[in-house]
């Protein structure tokens, strides 16, 4: 019987945390409602930057949802016993993040009341249409996967479910990267490297989120992560962060090689044409330094990684993720389309002009509301289900 | 957890009954007086014309007719067809408001308000026929 090892969160703390998370989620839903009534004019989005902060939050959550399942995969599919007890929490986080990300994505639609149309009319040349199946299928597969972990009679199918989940999330993350990879119009996208880049980013971000949640819950319950497990997970995060940095470097180096991409790269990396210089700051400072180099320095430190250092590195990786996604999604739209190469262009529709996007409160609330929804679902899941790994309590 | 005094009080059968009665009574008190929702006022459309189908057929089938016609018009470019929305609006626009969906008593709004089935056609479609729109434009301050 596992019930005596069932780790609870203190009831008082649970209700307080639930109220907090619920309030954040409700604020997000309220912002979405206001956007639906008044239109997107109340946001900072224009006809030049049509995908803004909500997409940054949504894509982070969806990519992290795919990657957080890595922990379970390493346990079930690759047979690493240290990861097996962490699989249920990984599955729960995957579902919660997916739900939160999809909530933000669907509420940011111009017509969220037409989600039924999206669910019944499909144009299969569109990656978005494929993603409807990939995302909902992911939720179902993770649900089945969790069931094989919890239901003792189904334990022997856990590996098969794990393999199915692994294959499915490769397809899903490739689909997410392909949303951008297939766009021939914009210089920031139209690149095949985006699909594998998103896969590696999902590994890094998912593991970072897992480590943050695990650390927080262990701290609440007075548990301690065994030294050996911590060292392995920290090193793994470091490897993922390094691999992601490598693919981002390859993407930019290739772009720099093409003369036609030169102006765009100068805009992103050096801020040429941008009076504020927000994209180079976010890219170099937010992603490369804070999101990659500093975490790697902590995680690969010769004297080892303490629990605080690992938590800090994970938080930095997540901050870097938001910075990278903002540069990628918004920067790609801020830079004007090159309809007339070699020409200076002006028009009433901001042709040839850099568009500075400043998010307003509805976008912030909606994005953070999605995080709140993921938080609430994780909280309820941890309370109701036996997902916490059974590591030792603090002496 | 032991049920305290307040909890015991609330769970007493009499308290439960009183609460239920209060809830139902307040609900009844807040209810709209009968007949607030006006019965649909089907204004006769333009004299000398007939609708494209008898009223019983229209009442039942107009959603399917409109849905079919919109695909025919948008995808196949057939305009001014028998079942076109502009055709409906042209005949059924109210004499008073010039619209089929502006006032609660206009043609579309009255039935849909009575049946409590919201429609969003006129978020995009003009609810006034073409020439009356021109008149409205001309008389705008």
């Amino acid at each position, binding site marked *: 019987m596992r019930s005596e090892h069932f780790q609870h969160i203190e009831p008082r703390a649970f209700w307080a945390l639930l109220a907090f998370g619920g309030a954040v989620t409700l604020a997000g839903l309220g912002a979405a409602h206001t956007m*639906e009534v*008044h*239109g*997107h*004019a109340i946001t900072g*989005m*224009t*006809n*030049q930057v*049509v*995908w803004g902060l909500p997409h940054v939050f949504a894509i982070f959550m969806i990519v992290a949802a795919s990657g957080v399942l890595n922990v379970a995969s390493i346990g079930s599919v690759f047979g690493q016993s240290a990861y097996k007890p962490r699989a249920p929490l990984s599955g729960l986080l995957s579902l919660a993040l997916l739900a939160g990300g999809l909530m933000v994505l669907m509420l940011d*639609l*111009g*017509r*969220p009341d037409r*989600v039924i*149309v*999206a669910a019944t*009319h499909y*144009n299969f*040349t*569109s*990656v*978005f249409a494929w993603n*409807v199946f990939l995302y909902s299928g992911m939720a179902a597969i993770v649900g089945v996967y969790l069931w094989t972990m919890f239901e003792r009679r189904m334990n022997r199918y856990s590996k098969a479910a794990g393999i199915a989940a692994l294959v499915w999330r490769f397809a899903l993350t490739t689909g997410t990267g392909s*949303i951008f990879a*297939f*766009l*021939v*119009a914009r210089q920031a996208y139209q690149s095949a490297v985006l699909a594998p880049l998103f896969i590696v980013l999902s590994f890094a971000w998912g593991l970072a989120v897992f480590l943050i949640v695990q650390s927080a819950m262990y701290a609440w319950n007075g548990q301690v992560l065994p030294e050996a497990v911590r060292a392995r997970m920290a090193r793994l995060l470091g490897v993922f962060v390094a691999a992601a940095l490598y693919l981002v470097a390859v993407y930019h180096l290739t772009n720099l090689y093409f003369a036609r991409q030169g102006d765009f790269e100068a805009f992103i990396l050096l801020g040429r044409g941008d009076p504020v210089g927000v994209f180079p700051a976010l890219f170099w400072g937010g992603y490369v330094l804070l999101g990659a180099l500093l975490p790697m320095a902590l995680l690969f430190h010769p004297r080892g990684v303490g629990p605080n250092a690992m938590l800090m590195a994970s938080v930095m990786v997540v901050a870097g993720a938001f910075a990278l996604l903002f540069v990628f999604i918004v920067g790609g*739209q801020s830079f004007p389309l090159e*309809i*007339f190469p*070699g020409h*200076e*262009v*002006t*028009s*009433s*529709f*901001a*042709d040839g002009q850099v*568009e500075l996007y400043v998010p307003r409160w509805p976008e912030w609330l909606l994005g953070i509301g999605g995080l709140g929804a993921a938080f609430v679902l994780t909280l309820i899941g941890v309370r109701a289900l036996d997902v916490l790994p059974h590591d030792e309590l603090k002496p | 957890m032991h049920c305290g005094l307040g909890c015991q009080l609330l769970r007493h059968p009499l308290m439960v009954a009183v609460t239920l009665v209060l809830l139902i009574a307040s609900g009844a008190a807040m209810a709209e007086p009968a007949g607030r929702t006006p019965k649909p006022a089907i204004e006769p459309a333009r004299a*000398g*014309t007939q609708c494209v189908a008898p009223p019983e057929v229209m009442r039942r089938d107009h959603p399917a007719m409109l849905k079919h016609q919109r695909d025919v018009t*948008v*995808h*196949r*470019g*057939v*305009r*001014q067809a*028998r079942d076109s929305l502009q*055709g409906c*609006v042209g005949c059924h626009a109210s004499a008073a408001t010039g619209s089929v969906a502006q006032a609660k008593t206009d043609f579309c709004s009255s039935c849909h308000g009575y049946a409590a089935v919201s429609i969003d056609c006129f978020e*995009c*479609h*003009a609810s006034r*026929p073409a020439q009356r*729109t021109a008149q409205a434009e001309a008389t705008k301050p």
Partner: protein
Amino acid sequence: MSKGSTEALAGRRKFLGLAAAGMGGVLLAPGIHLIEVAQAATPEVTSKVRWGLLIDTTKCASGCTDCVSACNSENGLDPKPSPTSAQWIRKVEIKEIKTGRQASLPVMCQHCAQPPCVDVCPTGASFKRADGIVLVDRHSCIGCRYCVMACPYKARSFVHEPLTDQKPDVPRGKGCVEGCTLCVHRVDRGGTPACVEACTKAGHEAMLFGDLNDPDSAISKRVREVASRQLRADLKLDPGVRYLGL
């Protein structure tokens, strides 16, 4: 018979004749109205036709916005657009950096034969009609703006606020994406787009509309005679809009 009764008889005949004519008119008039309605439905579009535009930028004056104003009033768009207003056509002023040569031209939806906006639309709302016109079926559009991301010409606009007083022939509303329709409501009735009509009426003669599939149409003859090019032809989208003088 007396003279008076003959006159009276003539008078009565006249009256009866007039009455009969009047009755006939009253009886026939609704019938005429019904026949008028029955004749009006326009035919289905086919792929025999491919509509296109030819824009002569040498005749396009910098600062002239006749085509834009015509489009705005025809389709009920904002005459003074803000960054969130929809613009279906805009005048673009270009200057070649190396040579300094300047040109002015209108840019609108290019109605590509291989439209990327159609490929990326998840619900199929963005579609290409049989006659080559690329449209948004706003009944299916969920407002995801993927087509706005995909269009190389920035042809699509998103409606950011609730709209009122739409033109009856041009339904448009908040939350959907839209773009130049090549005035389908006119073209289907045998007319030409409002921009072309305005440009021609003003005497600039910079815009030509016609059937690219018909070798004898004015536009086909012209593109056979004079070198024209498509914008971003390297993308191989085969737009239906061509430009002279670029």
